[in-house]
């Protein structure tokens, strides 16, 4: 069973490696997940979203379990401090996972009718990693929050 779990992990990484055509490197590397994924790292994804603008902490509160019993279904939610008026609202929120083969998880778009910029979903995490939420406000500023989620693999539930 242990072996099986371990093998499955390698398989996942191999699959990841195939995308980059660098299987051996992936297995040898310690935690280079995002760096070898199809071009884009979590950092790149965030930069593409913010256009390189400064991203401050605050306003965004991201909730995740500290430990996910299975990486296949990890509940994630966020709540952003904003009056959500025509002049001052959250436009969109990017959620990325920095240790997944591809960091992008989802981008949520809000409107004046949202009332409150909050959302919940369930996501897949390939291993222990950070989940990051970045909010784009209507004035062009960006805010973020980050949470480390420990993903347990193996055992009999793995």
């Amino acid at each position, binding site marked *: *069973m*242990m*072996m*099986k*779990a*371990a093998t499955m992990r390698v398989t996942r990484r191999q699959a990841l490696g195939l995308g980059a055509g660098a299987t051996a490197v992936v297995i040898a590397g310690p935690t280079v997940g995002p760096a070898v994924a199809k071009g884009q790292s979590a950092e790149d994804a965030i930069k593409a979203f913010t256009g390189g603008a400064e991203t401050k902490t605050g306003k965004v509160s991201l909730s995740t*379990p500290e*430990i*996910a*019993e*299975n990486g*296949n*279904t*990890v*509940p994630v939610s966020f709540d952003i401090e904003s009056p959500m008026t025509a002049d001052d609202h959250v436009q969109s929120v990017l959620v990325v996972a920095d240790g997944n083969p591809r960091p992008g998880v989802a981008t949520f778009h809000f409107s004046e009718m949202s009332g409150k910029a909050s959302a919940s979903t369930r996501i897949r995490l390939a291993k222990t990693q950070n989940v990051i939420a970045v909010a784009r406000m209507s004035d062009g500023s960006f805010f973020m929050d980050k949470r480390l989620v420990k993903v*347990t*693999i*193996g*055992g*009999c*539930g*793995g």
Partner: protein
Amino acid sequence: MGTRVISSTAAKLAAAAGLAAVAAYATVALAGPNDNELAVDGQKYMTEVPGAKDGPLEKVYSGWRFRNEATQAMQLDDFDNPGFTNVETGEQLWSTVDGEAGKSCESCHGDAAESMKGVRAQMPKWNEAAGKPLTLEHTINNCRTQNMKAAPWKWESNEMLSMTAFIGLQSRGMPVNVKTDGPMKAWHDKGKEIYYARVGQLDMSCSGCHEENYGKMIRADHLSQGQINGFPTYRSKWQKLGSIHRRFKGCMKNIRATPFKVGGDEFTALELYVASRGQGLSIETPAVRN
């Protein structure tokens, strides 16, 4: 909650797998079930009942009590529970005509909320015509082939899982109540024998984990008593519902044993015995686990 050391079985298992990192988990102080209460729409469920006087467990706990709050939460609201997409499919199938006899389940059984109430709680149940106990899956397929003149569903098919989830839901909240006397005794005893038999390359039995070491960590997993009151269960690992026999098969593969046949006599006997270990627990179908 006191600190318990990792079980000898788990330590042995770790050594067998040659994973030194596993030892790190030995120091994790996580023991016993948690104290959360399971209630859905105001209805409370019995996730803890006293074990039978002459039984092996002092207290009987639902697997829900061994999950963390993120996993538990998915079962607290029927909308959040992904098993309910199958329940809805099952409800449709219930009244869908199939087979040469031109019947649906509803043609004979009417309103499932009445006719199927308590059915899941008594499974597996003795069937005189078959001369053996039948699981819910067997019973459904019997009805399909004999009464509806329809093709049987595959054990792990979406149709079968949807129907067992829908029928199971009609017993939700009712206590597990399987018969183990009369002609069932031999099957119960056979199931018990399987439960305690050490098998596979890792030389483990069901009891090694689920009786002697529940509440402790096996690598990163919090061991439950292996109760089956929530099946078919939506597992995050499977990303869908799965049957009791699928879970048994997975356990046997984990200990590197050759699994018994899904739907076969061995797993039926084991299902009966494991169900009997959870007498009194509320049916939670469709439960959510990791």
